[in-house]
Structures are given as structure tokens and as C-alpha cells.
């Protein structure tokens, strides 16, 4: 009797614990309201839903080594992870996931995002900021004759090659090298692509470099008309040209185009290769809209950064300073009037405030130590997720109903006990999932539905055993006792093998499959307990109440 009391106490205790684990609670989290994310308290059931159920974006990032090998990749990835995490935290998503998987991959999950392109930008942008002084020694002009000669030599042989496939490939490589994935490149891309298709994939050979360039308004600045931009990009990407560029100087493209007299020009800048400062020292950055410069990002340097900046700019008064972001000169280099301290701004011109917001965000979070490429991306629309939840819930309800009908139809009273145990099984499983913070995915839901069908297996085994014992003419009480006893080995063996399989799945699966494995393990453990312990207790209660019944409805 006391034994029975403890059994009931344990079951009730577990029910209470399960209900508590699943009770809707108030949590503070980021939610989306009128298109912006705000912190808010909301009331919800503490079951986490996977991306495939709520909709959102999944990204797998790897170190991009296409532009040169990266030394000490693992360390670089760890630092990149920190930067990406900071950026995502500021980006504003409810419950984002940023984690390292294996040694070479960062996984980012952004539930509820509806502008995937912007998210990709924020994650991937290198945000490497440099301040550099434009060249005042006419370095490029002086080396132009040599460059022209090299360009002529390089252009000549490639023209002679009749099968232009090889050179075409080289052109493409050159272009993509120069076109870093930022907004400036995007503006130029369609045009250069057009130029490519117009000139049928043969590298430009007509002119030499100097004929493409026009001197700009300030030292080190050159204009290249839009139609010649792809030619120039090709030449500057040639290794022999790069080797012959004036030493100690760097050539960078401007991010914007400018219009002069109805013609559109791109700009290139010849800069002193030594930067006077980089983005490391940025302490804060915020977007702004100014009447004169348009959209800007105002930044503030740390005290130490400000001190260095003051010293450096003091040496360069009346010089022009280019602000280089990810290898592109932002805006037109301003002239340094007097030593600059801790404050500055990056001019973005006509772009909208959103771009400034994102730039400010990535500047605050810091530059990515290595370029990252996207190895995998998934976008799931929110409507699809809702649909999946509805369908999954429907399937669950009907599966439970079907099993109830079958069990009660076949086993009558005992079937009802099994159904009671099944209900507890569902409750326990969900509670275990909530308790371990497991993520419910669509395959997970499928696993849950499947386990409803399998959960009664243990009950069926037990009931069939009890029937056999009854057939042998044993009393109801003994039959129940022995039925449970004899069925136990088979139940334990089957449960354990399935759990072992699920554990392997968990170890080697990814994302959704992991979710499936977790629900499977939770389901099997719960069904083991429900069938073996709960059903037996129900029988014991029944036996006590009926004071040793002579017949059993089974």
C-alpha cells in the first residue's frame, strides 16, 4: 500500500513538474513590433521552435581563402566569431544563434528576419576602415610610361591568342578581384558586365593606361569614364602591372561615381600605402543625415586613437585624407584643415539611412579579421513555418486519436489505462523537450508523431503477455505481475537499441536531424516510463479498488 502511495506520488510529482515546465511564462525577449525589434515581456509556452517552424535565416560561414591563404585559420575564425556575434546582437533579432561548428565554420541563425540580403551584408562585410593620405608626388604620372609599355606588351600577346577562353577567364578573375562585395562595387557591376558582353570577352587592347586616365581635382585623384572602367580594372589587376606600380603607394577605387558635364566617371586614388590610422580605434559610430553631405556616419575614436590621429593629421595639414572602407575610398577625400581629434565622419552621399545604420553597426562591432564566405544559406518564409506548425499539430492530434481508438477498441478497459499512460507520455515528452531547451523542428514534430505510434508498443507487449498468463489459468493479480515481468526484457532491449541509434543520429546529424534525434530520445524515455511504471501503477490502483477482481477487461 505504501509502495502504491509512493508510486502515485512520483507520477503526480512528475505531472506537476511537467506542467510547470510547460506553463506559459513571462520572458523578456526581443520581439518585432511595427518592423523594429524592441525588448518586451511576452507570455508564451517555453518550447523553442526551430527556424523551419518560425521562418528565418540560416547561414553557414567559412573563411574565404580565394584571395589568399589565411594563416592560423582557427584563431582567425574565433576572432571572427566574436565580431559576427557582436554585429548580430546589435542587428536586432529575437533569439539569434551564433556559434562555431567544427573548426572551420560559423553558424548564424536569425529567426524572423525578412530582409535576408541586408543580414548577409551585416554578417559578411569586412568593415576594415583605414585613413590614408593621397599621393602628392605625382608617383603614378611618373611611372605611367612604364605601365603603358607593360600594358601594351600584356595586351599584345593576349590579342594574338585566338582561343580567347583562357584570357576571358583571366579578365573575370581580375574583375572579381577588384570588385569587393560592397555597395560601391554593386553600382559598378552591371556596367562592367555590359562592357564585357559588348567587347566579346577579349581584353581591351586599344589604348594604353594613360589614355584612360584624366587628372582629377586633387593630388592623387584620377577620373576614368564609366565605359573605360572595366578596361582599367583589367589592367590594374594584371600582376605585371601591379608589380610595376610606384613603391610605397596604393591604388584604390572610389566607391561612388561622379558626373561631370553629363558624363559619368569613376575615380581612382593614388594613396600613400602607409595608413595613418585604422578602424581599430573606433569607439562609437552613429548614422546621421546632414543637409550638406547627405547621409553620413559619424564616428568617435578612443582617447588613445584620438591622440594618434591628432599627431598624424598635424603632419598632414593641407593634405587630402582618404577614408578607405574595405579597399574603397568613401566619398571624396577632404582636405585636412587642422589636426583632427577624436571625431570624424564618413560621407555616404545619396545612399539611404539604412546603409548608414548598418555601416555604423559594423564599425562599432569592429572589422572582420578574415574575409568570410557563405557556404550555406537557407531562408524560410514565416508563412511556411506557420503552415508547418499547423500541419504538424494536425497530424499529432489525429495520430493520438487513431491510437486511442485502436487501443480502446482492442483492449477495452486496459486500453483505457494505456491511453491514460499515453497522455502522460505526450506531456512528459514535451516537458523533457522544454526542460532541456531542445529546439522543435519539423522533422522533430514528425519524430514526435511517430513516437506516439511506437509508444504503445510497450503497452501492447505487456497486454499480450498478461493475456497469455490469463490463458494459462493464472489469477488476475499474478497474470498482471508476470505479464509485466516477462515483457520487461524485450521492452528494455528495444528501447535501448533505439536510443543508441538516436544517439548516433544526434552525434552525426546537423540542425533539423539533431532535433529529430532529441525528440526521439525524449519520446522513448518517456514511453518507457509511461508503459512500464505508469500503466502498472494504474493496474495496482485498480486491483486495490476492486479488492482482487476475478476478471480483467483486456
Amino acid at each position: 500500500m505504501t509502495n502504491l502511495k509512493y508510486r502515485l506520488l512520483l507520477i503526480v510529482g512528475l505531472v506537476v513538474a511537467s506542467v510547470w515546465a510547460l506553463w506559459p511564462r513571462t520572458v523578456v525577449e526581443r520581439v518585432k513590433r511595427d518592423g523594429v525589434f524592441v525588448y518586451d515581456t511576452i507570455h508564451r509556452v517555453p518550447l523553442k521552435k526551430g527556424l523551419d517552424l518560425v521562418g528565418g535565416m540560416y547561414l553557414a560561414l567559412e573563411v574565404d581563402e580565394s584571395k589568399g591563404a589565411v594563416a592560423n585559420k582557427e584563431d582567425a575564425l574565433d576572432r571572427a566569431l566574436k565580431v559576427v556575434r557582436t554585429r548580430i546582437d546589435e542587428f536586432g533579432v529575437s533569439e539569434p544563434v551564433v556559434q562555431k561548428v567544427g573548426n572551420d565554420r560559423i553558424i548564424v541563425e536569425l529567426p524572423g528576419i525578412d530582409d535576408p540580403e541586408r543580414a548577409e551584408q551585416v554578417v559578411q562585410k569586412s568593415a576594415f576602415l583605414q585613413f590614408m593620405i593621397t599621393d602628392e608626388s605625382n608617383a603614378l604620372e611618373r611611372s605611367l610610361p612604364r605601365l603603358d609599355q607593360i600594358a601594351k606588351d600584356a595586351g599584345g600577346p593576349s590579342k594574338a591568342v585566338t582561343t580567347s577562353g583562357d584570357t576571358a577567364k583571366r579578365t573575370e578573375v581580375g574583375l572579381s578581384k577588384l570588385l569587393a562585395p560592397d555597395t560601391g562595387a554593386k553600382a559598378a557591376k552591371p556596367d562592367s558586365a555590359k562592357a564585357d558582353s559588348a567587347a566579346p570577352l577579349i581584353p581591351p587592347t586599344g589604348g594604353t593606361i594613360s589614355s584612360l586616365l584624366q587628372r582629377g581635382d586633387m593630388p592623387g585623384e584620377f577620373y576614368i569614364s564609366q565605359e573605360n572602367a572595366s578596361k582599367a580594372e583589367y589592367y590594374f589587376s594584371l600582376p605585371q602591372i601591379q608589380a610595376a606600380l610606384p613603391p610605397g603607394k596604393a591604388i584604390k577605387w572610389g566607391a561612388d561615381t561622379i558626373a561631370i558635364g553629363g558624363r559619368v566617371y569613376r575615380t581612382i586614388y593614388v594613396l600613400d600605402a602607409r595608413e595613418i590610422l585604422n578602424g581599430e580605434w573606433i569607439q562609437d559610430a552613429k548614422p546621421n543625415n546632414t543637409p550638406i553631405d547627405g547621409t553620413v556616419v559619424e564616428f568617435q575614436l578612443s582617447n588613445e586613437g584620438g591622440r594618434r590621429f591628432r599627431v598624424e593629421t598635424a603632419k598632414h595639414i593641407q593634405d587630402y585624407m582618404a577614408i578607405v572602407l574595405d579597399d574603397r575610398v568613401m566619398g571624396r577625400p577632404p582636405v585636412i584643415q587642422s589636426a583632427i581629434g577624436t571625431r570624424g565622419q564618413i560621407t555616404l552621399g545619396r545612399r539611404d539611412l539604412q546603409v548608414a545604420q548598418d555601416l555604423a553597426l559594423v564599425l562599432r562591432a569592429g572589422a572582420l579579421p578574415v574575409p568570410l564566405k557563405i557556404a550555406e544559406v537557407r531562408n524560410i518564409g514565416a508563412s511556411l513555418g506557420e503552415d508547418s506548425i499547423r500541419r504538424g499539430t494536425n497530424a499529432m492530434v489525429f495520430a493520438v486519436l487513431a491510437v486511442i481508438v485502436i487501443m480502446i477498441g482492442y483492449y477495452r478497459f486496459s486500453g483505457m489505462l494505456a491511453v491514460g499512460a499515453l497522455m502522460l507520455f505526450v506531456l512528459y515528452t514535451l516537458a523533457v523537450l522544454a526542460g532541456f531547451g531542445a529546439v522543435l523542428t519539423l522533422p522533430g514534430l514528425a519524430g514526435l508523431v511517430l513516437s506516439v505510434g511506437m509508444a504503445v508498443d510497450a503497452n501492447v507487449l505487456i497486454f499480450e503477455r498478461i493475456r497469455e498468463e490469463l490463458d494459462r489459468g493464472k489469477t488476475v493479480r499474478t497474470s498482471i505481475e508476470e505479464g509485466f515481468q516477462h515483457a520487461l526484457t524485450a521492452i528494455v532491449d528495444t528501447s535501448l537499441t533505439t536510443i543508441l541509434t538516436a544517439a548516433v543520429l544526434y552525434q552525426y546529424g546537423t540542425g533539423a536531424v539533431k532535433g529529430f534525434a532529441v525528440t526521439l530520445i525524449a519520446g522513448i524515455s518517456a514511453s518507457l516510463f509511461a508503459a512500464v511504471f505508469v500503466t502498472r501503477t494504474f493496474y495496482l490502483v485498480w486491483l486495490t479498488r476492486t479488492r482482487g477482481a476475478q476478471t480483467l477487461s483486456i
Partner: protein
Amino acid sequence: MFRILHDTKFDFIKWWRHAAVLTIVFILIGLSSFIFKGGVNYSIEFTGGTLVQVKFTQPPDPAELRAVIGEAEITQFGDATEYTLRLQGTQEIAQQASAAEGVAKDVEAKLRAKYGDGFTIVRTEAVGPKVGAELARGAVIAMLLASLVTLVYLAIRFEWRFGLSAVLSTAHDVLITLAFIKLFHIEVSLTVVAAILTLLGYSGNDTIIIFDRVRENLKKSRKEPLYDTLNRSINETLPRSVLTHVTTLAATLTLLIFAGSVLRPFSLVMAFGIFVATFSSIYVASPILLYIERKFPRKDLAGRGPHVSASTARAESQVEQPTRPIRGSKAPVGR
């Protein structure tokens, strides 16, 4: 009480040759399909590539859609306005090595140019080739490891004969399910792999339950030939097998009906696998156990297993003459 298949005395093992022919033919058809028509239809998760699911406001003309997208596999998904576009060509996959999202953006641009705002992109998946290869390796490792773990567990809990029979029958289930996947052109995605792995466990379960009974019956009646013991055990566990399959199948069918297109391959594979698991635990695991017993009769007559070895020779002769009725039929009252 209401009972089905109670106290049956079917001679299941008798039919093992027919069953073997049936299953071998099915597997051979599947395998030859593999050889002559190429491998299974892998999802982009494994091959790398891009999948775009699009919902149009107006049902588009499929031919027109094909003309817009070019080299892609276009499938209707659910109703007439929803399509999935799969781009798995070597060129696209190569393009995704440097940036996985490129192809998806191209597709969107092409659609935008043709249909304007007449569509929404419900889902995109873009996987670079490296990720896909890693996943495929993971799946194979998972499958082999799961088999090994089951083998070891059963060898410890039962005996190596039982373990080996169970694992071989499970391997048979996986093979025949693969043949099914191939013949019915089911796309092998991660969830389908999960279904196959679940079947691995499930098929093992069925075999274990029969073997558990065999083990018990062997202890009880030591003189009975293994052939009869197997038949008796299968008959005794028959109600359980049927009922459990009915409930599991009911759950799988609700998934098939209600859970929609995303889970359809998973549900189909599960439903097929459940049938196969029952079949194989009777017609694959048991004959293999008989065969092993015949080839490697137990030597430790006096030890833990005198019950079978004494009758091994007879078991063999019974396999040779399968028409013979069951002796030692089931007597419910203890002997």
C-alpha cells in the same frame, strides 16, 4: 476479450524460399536501376546546389517558367501556384563554392524580370559543394555506426548468432528501402536519412522481440528443433507485431495525409519501412539464424546452450522439407 490472430499455428518459416526470392528480386531490380539509371535523387543538401520555393499570385505556365529559369528542375509543390526550382548543375554548384547565395539571387532576378511582383519566395536553400560532401559522409558514418552499436549490444544481451542475424536483417531492410527510394524516385534529403536511421532502430526492435521470445522458448523446451521454436515464437508474438504495426502505421499515415509535401518523402519511407521491418524479422532474421545454427552448431552441449544443438541436424532436415507440419505445437499450459 476481443482477439485477433490468437493461438495461431502458421508455419511461417516454410515460406522462406519464396520470401527470399521475392525480396532478392526487388533488391536486384533496385540495384540494377542504380547501375543503369544512375544513383538516387539526392537533395541539394548532399550535392550542393540551390532550391528556391516560389509562390505565385497567378498559376504560371510551366513551360514559360522553364524558359525563364533555364537549366533547373521545376516541380509543382502543393497547389498550382507553388513551385520548387532546383538548380543542381555542376556549373551552378561550382559557382556556389565561392558564395553559396549567388545562384539564388540570379534566380530571383530572372523571376523579377519576368513576373514583377507576382510572386513571393517562400524558401531558399543554397548549399556549397563542400558542406554537401561533409553531410553525405556524416550520414554514411551514422548508418554504419548505428549498425555496429546494435550488433555489439545484441551480441552482449543475446548471443553473437542473434546479433548477427538481427544486423543482417536490418541491413536487408536498409537495402530494400534504398531500392524502394530509387524505384519510386523519392528525393533523398536529410529527413529521409533520418527516416532510414529510425527504421534501423525499428527493424531491430521487431527482430529483438521475436528473438527475445525465442530465447525464452529455448530455455523452456530444450528438445524442440530450432525450426519449430522459431515458428512458435513468431506465432506467439504475432498479435503484438500486428497491433504495433497498426498503431505505428496509423501515425505514419496521419503524417502522410496531414503533414504536407515537406514531410511526404519521410512518411512514405517510414510507411514502406514498417512493412519491411515486419517481413524481415520473420523471413530474413529467422532463416539466417537457422542457417548460422546449421553451419556453426553449438559445441558446448553441456554448457549454456544444449537446447538447440541437440536438434540442429533435425532443424536442417526440416528446412529441406518445408511442407512438413509443425510438431510440438503450442501448448499454452506449461509443459
